[in-house]
């Protein structure tokens, strides 16, 4: 079946602009996660959605980062006023609760 999909695959933006990254989870998966992968910090957890519960935002690095999940399916990660340190690969994963997380191909964000 279809895996996790993310768009765009690459995004180049100028410092100070806002960006939106999209994630389509595997159908039926109730849990959705965002992670960030960078050379300096490795793989870091950002945010977790489970069903209709309030998301766990404990991993978001600043208030410039936000995410929403509409209808329990598609999720959008928004970064406002992007900074160069936001450059990274943003990975989305989905799972059944407590089960193996399956990752999407990622969005490579470059902030100039």
């Amino acid at each position, binding site marked *: 079946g279809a895996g996790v999909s993310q768009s765009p695959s690459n995004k180049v933006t100028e410092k100070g602009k806002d960006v939106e990254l999209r994630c389509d989870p595997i159908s039926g998966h109730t849990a959705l*996660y965002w992670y960030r992968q960078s050379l300096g910090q490795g793989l870091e957890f950002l945010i*977790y959605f489970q069903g209709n519960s309030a998301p*766990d935002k404990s991993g978001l690095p600043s208030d410039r980062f936000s995410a929403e999940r509409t209808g329990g399916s598609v999720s959008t990660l928004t970064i406002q006023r992007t900074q160069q340190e936001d450059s990274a690969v943003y990975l989305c*994963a989905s799972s059944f609760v407590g089960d193996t997380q399956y990752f999407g191909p990622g969005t490579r964000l470059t902030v100039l």
Partner: protein
Amino acid sequence: ELKVEQNPLFLSMQEGKNYTIYCNYSTTSDRLYWYRQDPGKSLESLFVLLSNGAVKQEGRLMASLDTKARLSTLHITAAVHDLSATYFCAGTGSYQLTFGKGTKLSVIP
């Protein structure tokens, strides 16, 4: 707070040789995962280990878990070039994954 350490971070090995990657974690982890990442690609799930003494094998890779020592190992048998990739272990206290820094494996002829 769960911390996960892998070693080595870089591993260059000859085809046909055996080697082990080690993954230590700091506090109780509900389960332990191993993922593979090829350059420019996403993470591919390899193994999930649920309990003490768990052992799983797939091809030339075998993963094990010792919860008392808070240690997981990924053993590579008779390495082949196709195994060249970065391998991550990850623990989970509740739901989010905490990853090690990864082991970049290069298998050379």
